[in-house]
């Protein structure tokens, strides 16, 4: 339980810092430390993401970094995909979800590494 809360805190820091990665930590935290199944961990991760993204968006907006209209439009355009993805997640075997999730977080890792190696330090 305590481990899950600590990883939650870490996931929030990473999400605020890098803009991605909250869910990539929530899901394994929920399966490893709270013994949820893959699909339940994914669903529960999504619930946890809502307040995190809300607060993150609010802070980024305060710093002038969020285009509210574009973000809302993107979200609305993503509704069908989000509902479809959730339906598919419930239709496929757990093992397929685990493998897909593993590949997704490798993709996240590759992108973060490329971004980091390309970027110069950029204090504001």
């Amino acid at each position, binding site marked *: *339980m305590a481990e899950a809360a600590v990883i939650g805190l870490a996931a929030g820091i990473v999400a605020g810092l890098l803009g991605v990665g909250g869910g990539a930590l929530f899901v394994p935290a929920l399966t490893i430390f709270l013994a949820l199944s893959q699909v339940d961990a994914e669903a529960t991760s999504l619930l946890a993401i809502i307040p995190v993204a809300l607060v993150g968006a609010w802070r980024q907006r305060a710093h002038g970094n969020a285009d509210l209209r574009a973000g809302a439009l993107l*979200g609305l355009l*993503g509704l069908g995909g989000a509902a479809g993805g959730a339906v598919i997640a419930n239709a496929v075997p757990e093992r397929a979800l685990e493998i897909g999730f593993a590949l997704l977080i490798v993709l996240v890792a590759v992108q973060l590494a490329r971004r980091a190696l390309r970027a110069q330090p950029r204090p504001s």
Partner: protein
Amino acid sequence: MAAIGTAAGLASGLFGVGGGIVIVPLLVLWLGYAEREATGTSLVAIVVIAAVATAVHAAYGNVHVREGLLVGVPAVAGVLLGTELQRRISTRAISLSFAALLVLVAGDLLLDG
């Protein structure tokens, strides 16, 4: 825009992530956003996407509210800290460490699922 939204939505509903991994790079590459603006804009989109994906999963009975709060509430404190830190420090070392951690988690998942 529609392609980015749909891809992010699918990734989100299917894998339980926000979709920032899809949105941030595509906003930068396709629409010429600066990285920080892409991050903030992505978070706005994620609120909407995650809410719908959660609702659909909840209809299947997959959502554990107590466990969600257990990771989500500390994460809210974390994101406040993270957005403040983002303006002060270079995120390079953190990105690389986090990338390494994700590869380890993925390896663990693939090997003994």
